[in-house]
Structures are given as structure tokens and as C-alpha cells.
């Protein structure tokens, strides 16, 4: 009986082996032949966060990549990540009072179906962006009217001076849509577009832009395929097809890169990157405009002690900022002084955050809290921009223990955390990535100004020392400033935001862009994330 099994196995083995070998050979030959034919195809491994492919409804990091590849805004951002340059508009003029913006469209510009891009398309697109009331509709809040002077001239008037509008009009969400094509498929720009526009589903399988690519197909949770726009009026992209493959795990992304399944991986964290020694993979570590911060809500219920400015400053002084960067991203990050990212208007020569335990203790003693207290820290237990927020919370716990402040860590799912912070909670960890190049979006979100998100959470008008008047005045001044005066105007705002000690930026992590050695033109853009049209396969 003992010899029965081996004989059965031996009888099967040669046949099985032959079948397997044949299959592998045919498969290998077949695949390599097809792969050769697809040399101008670029595969990007990425955890996609798409909420829509409609420019008026989309609002996510992947959406920025998609929209800037398929649609074109009036303006765009140069590779230096700070200069606004022409896109659909070949030139523009701004009135001295910064309320009237005249754009001259490039007459050569045409949509992927060959029809010309006109002023009517611009007016329709921007009015639709406002009226659909999607997440990015706030970009149009300051717009009073849009007038089409002639097919290639559009005049946009703002309600109040808005030096930020040029930056806004370079945001991918303002990409101009072929209005005739989209209208024929359920889109409209009417005031009731929020309910009457039914084109959301159409946009998931069709595109109507003038960008270098068109949408080939989209399978949610699987892949997003771009096809080169053969009617593109600019320099045609080198890649005929770009495929974005849903890859949730950073290690899997790295392995796909190693095996050649992917050409580019976008979310490999610095630790994983350091562990890979493959001569065929290039890692670009680039400073990003994303950042992670901690924030106080002095008016939050459940705070064990009044979170006065002295207490907030004491906590700010107890944080080991450089240590946090080392601890969370292995040193691959930058200090960020204010809640406006480094490199954006108003951030030159700002003082770096300081760590001073003795001074922190003095401030707490002055507030009668020398013996310390326990403070809840609410955060989303997740990884953002390569930072494990749970790890960061533990680092903060260690730092604050030095001044006798005991942090009670309260992790939550992202969805629950988002709901919690609006209660609000006394102390939390948050994160932010820009929608476009411009500092106003940060003041509008983090500024201690009435009705602004963090102004409301911090209790502007209720909390001591936070009346919001000075910041509002500075903000209006910044919006009315000429382009060349913006740096100074936003710097004053940044200094005030630092002084508030409500938002304490902790880490601005570097971005790891990994790609195969034969891939060129990979760069990070503040407006568009990853400009696909610039990627080449050598």
C-alpha cells in the first residue's frame, strides 16, 4: 500500500508537467508579444479615490490627475509650481481694482471631437461648476458675472477684489467642457443644476475636454484608462495609452514596479522606498504641499481645562517637530511654520516652530496647570501622505508627557472622525492638500475668521483672543493686493495664524514618486498632481 501513491503521482507527473510547461510557454510568448506592441502604454499603480469624473462634481487627488489630463482650464501652473501660464487662454488682463479679468482664448484650441473651444463653453462650464454645487463649487463663490464678448474673449467679474482668481482658474476642477456635447447628455448650467443635471453617470464613461488625453474607460475599483487625444491642439503626449491601476497597498505598488507590471507608483512610503534596492527603479523624493497638523478647539465641550492661548502655546512648545518628522517619515519631510504650505504666497522667511520644554512648563505654571492635565486627542486611524497618524499620535503622547499633559488617544475611522471634529473636539490631528496654487484656500479653511471651518470650530467671536476681525481685514487686503504684493499680504496673515496657536502644522512629508528607469517626465505639480502628458517611455 505504501507504494501506491508515488506510482499514481509518477504516472500523472509527466503529463501534468508537459501541460504546465506548454501553457507557460504559450502564455509567456503570447504576453511578451502583446507587451511589445504596447510599448507606448504607461501603467500607473495608485490607490484611486475617485468620487466622480465630472469636472463639476469631482473632488479628489486622483480627480486632479484625471481632469488635468482630459480637460484644460483657462490657465495652468508652470513646472516651477508657482508661475501661472497660459492654457486655453493665450493672454489675460486684470483690472487695477482686481475685480475684472479679461481672457483671450487661443483660437487654435479645440475639443477632442474637433469642435473649437469658445467663450460660450467657458461661461457654461464655470456657471455649471457653481450651480451643480459640487464640492469644488466654492471656487466660483467670488464670481459675480461671466460675459462672452466674442467667441474668443471672456470677461469675468468678481463681487469683491480677488487676486486669487488666476490661481483658481488654473485648478483642474475649472477645466472647460464641450458644452454642446455634455448638454446633449444630460448636463446643464442652470441655477437648479444641482438637481436637474443628470450627467454624472455619462461622465463616468465619456469625456468632453480639450486636453491631451480622452477617457477610454473607467472601471471603479479596478482601472482608469486614458487614450491619447488625436485631435489635441498642443504637443501630443508621447504615451498612446495611460492606465491607472487600482492598487491599494503600498508594498504591492512597489512589487508591481519591481516586476515591471507598473511603470510608476505614486504612494510608496519613504520606509518602503528605503528598503528597495533595485537598479531599475528610480525614487524621486520631492517636497510636497501636503501637511499634517494638530488643532485646538478652545470652545469644545469636554475640554478638561480652558485651552487659553498660554496653554496652547505651552503644548506647541512641548512638541518635538523634527522628532515627529524622523519618527513618522524617517526624516523625509519638512517643518512647516504656518497653515499655508511652504512655497505658497506668504511663506518666505517664516519662523520655524520652536521646541522649548522649560518655557512650556513656565506657561503651564502661569496658567495654574503645573501638575498637568489629561487631554483627549481625536484622530483618524489611517495613513495619509505616508504618515501613520496613530504613530504620530503616540509621538505627541510622548512629547506632551514631558510637561505633564497626558494625552488620551481617541482613534476613529476617517468617516467618524470627520463627523466628530465638527462637534467640535478639543484637540485633533488633521491633514490638508491644496486644490490649486494659492494661499487664500488656506485662510478660508484655517483662518480665525467668522464662518470659516476652523474659525467656527475654534469659536471665533466666543473664545478669548479670537475675535476674527484682524484676520478678516488682513484677508480682504490680501485679496485686493496686486499679484506682486501678494507675498507680503499673505505673510502678514501667516504670522497672525502662527500667533493664534490654533493650527500647529507638524509635518510636511516629502512625496515619493517611484518609476522604472526607462520612464521620464515624471513630476509633481501643485495644481495637477501628476501631469500625465509629460510622461515618456524611453
Amino acid at each position, binding site marked *: 500500500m505504501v507504494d501506491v501513491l508515488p506510482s499514481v503521482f509518477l504516472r500523472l507527473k509527466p503529463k501534468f508537467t508537459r501541460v504546465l510547461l506548454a501553457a507557460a510557454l504559450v502564455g509567456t510568448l503570447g504576453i511578451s508579444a502583446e507587451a511589445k506592441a504596447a510599448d507606448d502604454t504607461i501603467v500607473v499603480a495608485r490607490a484611486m479615490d475617485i468620487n466622480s469624473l465630472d469636472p463639476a462634481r469631482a473632488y479628489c487627488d486622483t480627480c486632479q490627475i484625471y481632469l488635468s489630463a482630459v480637460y484644460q482650464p483657462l490657465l495652468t501652473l508652470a513646472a516651477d509650481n508657482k508661475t501661472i501660464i497660459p492654457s486655453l487662454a493665450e493672454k489675460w488682463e486684470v483690472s487695477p481694482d482686481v475685480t475684472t479679468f479679461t481672457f483671450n482664448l487661443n483660437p487654435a484650441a479645440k475639443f477632442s471631437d474637433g469642435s473649437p473651444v469658445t467663450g460660450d463653453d467657458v461661461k457654461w462650464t464655470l456657471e455649471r461648476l457653481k450651480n451643480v454645487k459640487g464640492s469644488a463649487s466654492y471656487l466660483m463663490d467670488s464670481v459675480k458675472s461671466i460675459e462672452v464678448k466674442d467667441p474668443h474673449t471672456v470677461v469675468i467679474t468678481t463681487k469683491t477684489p480677488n487676486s486669487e482668481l488666476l490661481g483658481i482658474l488654473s485648478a483642474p476642477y475649472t477645466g472647460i467642457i464641450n458644452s454642446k456635447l455634455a448638454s446633449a447628455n444630460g448636463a446643464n448650467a442652470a441655477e437648479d443644476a444641482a*438637481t436637474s443635471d443628470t450627467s454624472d453617470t455619462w461622465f463616468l464613461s465619456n469625456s468632453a475636454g480639450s486636453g491631451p488625453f480622452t477617457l477610454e474607460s473607467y472601471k471603479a475599483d479596478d482601472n482608469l484608462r486614458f487614450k491619447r487625444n488625436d485631435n489635441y491642439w498642443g504637443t501630443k503626449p508621447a504615451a498612446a495609452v495611460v492606465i491607472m491601476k487600482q492598487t491599494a497597498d503600498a508594498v504591492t505598488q512597489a512589487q508591481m514596479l519591481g516586476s515591471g507590471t507598473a511603470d510608476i507608483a505614486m504612494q510608496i512610503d519613504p520606509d518602503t522606498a528605503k528598503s528597495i534596492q533595485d537598479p531599475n527603479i528610480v525614487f524621486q523624493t520631492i517636497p510636497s504641499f501636503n501637511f499634517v497638523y494638530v488643532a485646538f478647539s478652545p470652545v469644545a465641550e469636554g475640554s478638561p481645562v480652558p485651552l487659553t492661548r498660554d496653554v496652547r502655546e505651552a503644548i506647541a512648545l512641548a512638541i518635538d517637530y523634527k522628532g515627529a518628522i524622523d519618527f513618522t517619515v524617517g526624516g523625509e519631510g519638512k517643518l512647516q511654520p504656518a497653515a499655508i504650505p511652504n512655497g505658497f504666497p506668504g511663506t518666505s522667511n517664516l519662523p520655524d516652530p520652536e521646541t522649548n520644554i522649560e518655557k512650556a512648563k513656565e506657561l503651564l505654571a502661569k496658567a495654574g496647570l503645573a501638575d498637568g492635565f489629561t487631554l483627549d486627542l481625536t484622530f483618524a486611524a489611517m495613513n495619509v501622505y505616508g504618515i501613520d497618524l496613530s504613530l504620530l499620535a503616540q509621538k505627541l503622547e510622548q512629547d506632551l508627557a514631558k510637561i505633564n499633559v497626558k494625552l488620551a488617544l481617541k482613534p476613529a475611522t476617517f*468617516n467618524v472622525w470627520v463627523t466628530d471634529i465638527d462637534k467640535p473636539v478639543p484637540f485633533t490631528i488633521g491633514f490638508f492638500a491644496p486644490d490649486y496654487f494659492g494661499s487664500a484656500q488656506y485662510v478660508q479653511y484655517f483662518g480665525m475668521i467668522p464662518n470659516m471651518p476652523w474659525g467656527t470650530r475654534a469659536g471665533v467671536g466666543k473664545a478669548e483672543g479670537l475675535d476674527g476681525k484682524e484676520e478678516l481685514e488682513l484677508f480682504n487686503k490680501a485679496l485686493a493686493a496686486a499679484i506682486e504684493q501678494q507675498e507680503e499680504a499673505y505673510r502678514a496673515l501667516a504670522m497672525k495664524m502662527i500667533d493664534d496657536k490654533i493650527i500647529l502644522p507638524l509635518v510636511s512629508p516629502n512625496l515619493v514618486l517611484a518609476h522604472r528607469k526607462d520612464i521620464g517626465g515624471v513630476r509633481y505639480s501643485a495644481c495637477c498632481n501628476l501631469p500625465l502628458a509629460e510622461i515618456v517611455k524611453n
Partner: protein
Amino acid sequence: MLEVVLRRLFVMPFLLLGIVTATFILAQFTKGNPLVSIIGAKALTNPEVVAAAKKRWGLDRSIPERYVIYVKNLARGDLGVSFRTKQPVLADLAQRLPATLELVICAMIVGAASGLLLGVISAQFHDRAADHAARFIALLGSCLPIYWLGLLVLFLFTVQLPWLPGPGRLDLRAEQIEPVTGFMLVDTLLVDSWNAFVDAALHLVLPALVLGWSVTGIVSRMVRASLLDVMKQDFITMARAKGASATRVLVHHALRNALIPALTILGFTFAYLITGSVLVEAIFSWPGIGSYAVEAARALDYPAITGVTIIGGLGFLIANLLTDIAYAAADPRMRGAAA
């Protein structure tokens, strides 16, 4: 028999309604905000955007109102539109279910075949080195975390030894196959593309191995125990006494009888594999229903959560019905009990 089936079929819609009601209520009272997946977290601070999104997605209505609308639509076969993918849930499920089933069926074949082989080896070489080795291999599959194992085999067989393709169902750079059944192995043959068939089969190897190995232990243990038990029976001694060869005694007499309990275990492992597929799908970028369910839960995507539960519940009810029918068909004594 027919009466039993009809009775079960009659009760099924009511059971489904119970599942729908429970899921609907539980989902609505879960802490969190479904608008996050519709408009994003940042936009939640914009009251105008929030109001428009609530209206558009019916979230401005009361929970009972939403429930009545949902059930009415459900009766027409409409499972609603996913908050997250913005596509009909039915279409989402139709797209993902075959991917998971294909993976799970292949994993089950791997698990059953390897479990059977190792179980037989264990029983035959009872308490000898081969038995220990076979049990160790089977046990390893049950002990190793799927997540870790998945990453390891990907690293070994796609990066270090590039013998097999990486994650996904097909080579992304190759011509895409339009789904007909959603089962890639079938669809590639339907379009007469042998290369694509081989590609799809090769893509299945690693995820099916990882997932299948996780149930090898359960199957092999059951086969081993049953086989050892059967080999002690009188009819085996009789077969040997009659001069049947060792192979014949094993295959025709012992194994056939030992397989019955193992088959029952396979039914249970199917549910286990469906659950285990969630991790495998994440590692191998496999667009199946497991990852869809996880993302739906994470995003509080009510229509998708309820849709997945309905499909799961329906599957469970049908499986139970088929099991009862099969038992009744196999064993006349069970016919009364099934009623």
C-alpha cells in the same frame, strides 16, 4: 419534496425583507456621515454643497421614508446607486461578483485537491515522517497570515523569479476583453483568445494558491481522520481479503467513503474563502465583491452595503435550500426532516 421546495421559495422573500430591514436600520444608525464619500470631507463645511448633496441623494428625507422608497425600488429590482462609485449597485455587483466567484472556485479547487492529497498521504503514512510533513504543510497554510503570504509570493514569483504575472486579472497592456459572463477564463475563450485565456489563468495562480492553501489544513485533517476511520472498517478488510490491489482499496473503497464528511466541510470552507478573499483581493488588486464590501462599509455607502448584504443573504438562502434538497435526494430518511 416539491412541497418542501415550494414552501422554502415562498418564505424566501420574507426572509430577504427581514435581512434588508435589519441591514437598512443598522447602516443608518452607524456613526459617521455618508456624505464624506459623496462630496469629500473638506466640502462638509460648505452648507450649500451639503444641502444640495443631501437632496440629490435623498438623504434629506426621514429614515422611514427612505426605507419605503428603497423597498419599493427593490421590488422592481433596483438596488439604488452607490454613493461611492456613482453607478447602479446592481451593475457594480454584476461586475464584481464573477471576479470573486472565479477566484474562490479556483481557490477551492486548490484547497480541496491539496487537502485531499495531503490527507491521503497523512493517513497512508500514519504517524510517520510523511504524515508529519504533510500535516505541517497543511497547517502552515492555515497559520500563515494571508496578507503576509500574498505579499511574499508576489515578491518571490513576480519580482525575484519573474515566472508569473503581477496583480490584476489580465495583463493591463494587452488588449482588454469585454466581459460577457465576467468570468475571465470563460470570456477569453468566448472571444477565442487563447493567449488571453493563458494570461487570465496565470493571473489566477498566485491568488488562488494563497487563498486555497488557507483551507488545505481543514480539508486534509478531515480526509485524514475519515480515511483512518474507514480503513479500520470490515469492508476494507474484506476487499483486501478478496485480493483487491492497494490502489483499488484506497481509491474505490476507502476514499469514496471517507470523502462524504470532507464534502460537507467544503461547503463551510466556501463561506470562509469568500471572507478570506477580501484580503487577497486587496493584495492582488482583484476587483471583486470582497473589496467592494469593505470600501462600502468604510464609506457608509448605504445602497452598496444593503446590496452586498442582499446578495450574501440570497446566496445563503439558496445554498441552504440546495443543501436540503441534496440531503433529501441522497438520503430518503432526510426527506421528512427537510420539511
